[in-house]
């Protein structure tokens, strides 16, 4: 896969505040990346910089080969953005909003067919002649997504796209993202609802306090795995042995159960288990704590805090 976005050494400062600190990463074309991080991590700032809405102090962003700072309008023609505040014209009808969005992104010829297709994708066809201001929050969200995708951008950036949507609409949104990905679009999605991101994200990009903690494909082995190990009652020797291992950190003990971070792949985990048994520990349960996005995010963020605390 070729890279669609290349970010190198991005630094964004506000007076007395470093919002992004030397952030560098590459987004491959055709991926869906979940942008996650705690409040204040710099997610919105990063997305605004990628869109050319905010200027970084240092660093470079290339979108499809165009420098966002040098050629913002060329980038905007290849970019769709859904801000958290939607940015809709309440006095215009849904059809007018979509028509304006298409024309403003240099679509000239096939605007009517694009309006029809986009409205059908987002189940907005019955509302095309209604003013946007009269629609519910969920429908407005869909119109805003329609505005962002009507020009078939190469890159789609969405800030909290599912907020305000009911479960059915969220499911439909996930399906839409899959379809867009299949069509070759690259998506960067920020959300606090990690379970929702798990439905469609292929990669995860974690920010904390303005720094990029981790960027990896979901399903690939994280640098650190959260392990759950349960010892037989009255086996403190195993616990002490485990704590002494250099690949093990962040031990949290609850009764006879230990949660810890382990630096190593599946083979290393097997070696660890074998060594534990050889050390005489009565292990009754051993394995990764969970592989879902929520767990993966928490593991990474927790681990990312270690060197800074």
């Amino acid at each position, binding site marked *: 896969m070729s890279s669609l976005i290349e970010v190198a050494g991005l630094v964004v*400062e*506000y*007076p*007395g*505040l*470093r*919002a992004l*600190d030397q952030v560098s990463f590459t987004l491959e074309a055709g991926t869906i990346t979940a942008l996650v991080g705690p*409040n*204040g*991590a*710099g*997610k*919105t*700032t990063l997305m605004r910089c990628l*869109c*050319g*809405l905010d*200027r970084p*102090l*240092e660093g470079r962003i290339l979108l499809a080969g165009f420098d966002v*700072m040098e050629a*913002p*309008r*060329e980038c*905007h*023609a290849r*970019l769709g*953005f859904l*801000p958290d*505040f*939607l*940015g*809709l*014209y*309440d*006095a*215009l009808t849904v059809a*007018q909003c979509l028509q*304006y*969005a298409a*024309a*403003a*992104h*240099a679509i000239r010829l096939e605007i009517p067919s694009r309006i029809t297709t986009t409205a059908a994708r987002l189940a907005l066809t019955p509302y095309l002649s209604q003013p946007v201001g009269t629609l519910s929050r969920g429908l407005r969200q869909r119109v805003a997504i329609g*505005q962002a995708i009507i020009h078939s951008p190469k890159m789609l950036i969405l800030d909290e796209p599912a907020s305000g949507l009911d479960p059915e609409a969220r499911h439909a949104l996930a399906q839409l993202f899959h379809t867009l990905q299949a069509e070759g679009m690259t998506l960067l999605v920020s959300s606090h609802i990690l379970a929702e991101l798990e439905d469609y994200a292929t990669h995860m990009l974690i920010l904390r*306090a*303005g*720094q990029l903690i981790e960027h990896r494909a979901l399903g690939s082995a994280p640098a650190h795995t959260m392990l759950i190990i349960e010892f037989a009652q009255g086996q403190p020797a195993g616990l002490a042995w485990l704590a002494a291992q250099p690949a093990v950190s962040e031990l949290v003990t609850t009764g006879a159960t230990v949660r810890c971070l382990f630096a190593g792949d599946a083979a290393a985990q097997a070696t660890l288990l074998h060594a534990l048994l050889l050390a005489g520990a009565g292990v009754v349960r051993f394995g990764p704590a969970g592989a879902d996005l929520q767990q993966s995010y928490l593991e990474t963020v927790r681990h990312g805090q270690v060197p800074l605390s």
Partner: protein
Amino acid sequence: MNPELQRQWWLELSPARLITHGAGLGVLFVLVGLLDARFGLGFGAATPTAALLVFVCLAAWIGGQRVADALLDELRAQTWDMQRLSALSPWSMTWGKWLGATTDVWLGSLLCLAIFLQTAQSLTVSIRALFALEALGGALLVQILSLIGALALTGHPRRLKGLLGGRLVMVSSSLGYAWLAFHLGTDETVRWYGQVLPARVFCTGLLWVALVWGTLGAYRLMAETLQVRGIPWAWVSFLLFAGGVAAGGYVQPEQLPVVQLRTLAAVVLIGALGAAYLTAFNLPRDPLFARRLCGYARASQWRRVAEETPLWIVALGVGLVAVVVCVGTAGPVDDAVGPITHLGLAAFALWAYAARDLLLLLGLGFGPRAARAETTAVLILALLYWVIPALCTLLGLGAFRVGVRPPVFAGPGAASLILLVQLAGVGVWTWRAYQMRMTPQATGRT
């Protein structure tokens, strides 16, 4: 079709609105015509006057407000970022908003202008045409100034505060335009670079030239707002052009070339300093600009340095070049056209005053009350220029008065030295304020 123009038409050009406005104007002019007939004024006396007044109200005042609102409404509705994300060019965005937001206003205004041209039978055709050109140019200029005012607000954190300023710009420029229309006689003349020209034609020409520069200014500001940056050649050209036009009143063909040159430089200096104050106080100031410029300079990105240097610094730079010319060509006094022809070292003192004031404003922008930097700067400058000198005079502290506000023309050398010391002091204070503001205290932002 320009998408922004079409969007504005969707919003502004409803059939109901067009019918209402047309009917309103129709009723108004029928009533004025009846008044003419009833009081024996004869058709053509009150009607053309009313037509011009309604034109000014519609095209200049309401039109100016509409153009500003075309942008400010975007800010209020949080749709401006979406517009910034479109692929529309700055020029399409500029004229789409400008003419799109005022289309219905222009329909009514042009109707008024047609009524004026048809009914002002007491005026010759050429005078009527001149009136029409003044009216059109003046209204368009008010509208574009209003758009410039709104664009200047887009980067201000307290945007509503600026609404009053925008309205003031609109009203004052409308009044200036009305003064030109109603008080300048048709037989008056002006002397410009030794040429005697009809004043009314000259002013009308200037009005349209100002409109061209205003349009260019709005385009460049729009481009900057859309992150499309450029080297400020247009700004430098405007300062030189405006100085050149204004100098026409002082430069005479019989003067020596060196006197003409230093007179031109003096006028350019005064214009550039005025422009520096205007832009520094009104355009958004990015507190990180110095850091950006240093970063670009370290990376030898000189084009970026030129693109991101604030306009007020560019204006001060143009002023400094004019100072060099003024000082370098200083010569004997030419009393025929006043002190403007022999500023000499006083030119540097004037420049130093402006540099000190704007550095003070910059420093206040780094302080804890950055949002009120302009107001605080105005108060401090009022103290420095008027209150403290007046108190010193009252108390007989002449030397202290000179130290606070050194007289530029009475002793330009001493004034320059004193102002250099003041400039250095303000510079050190500004540098400290900058360092305190820029020291990262925490990371993280949503």
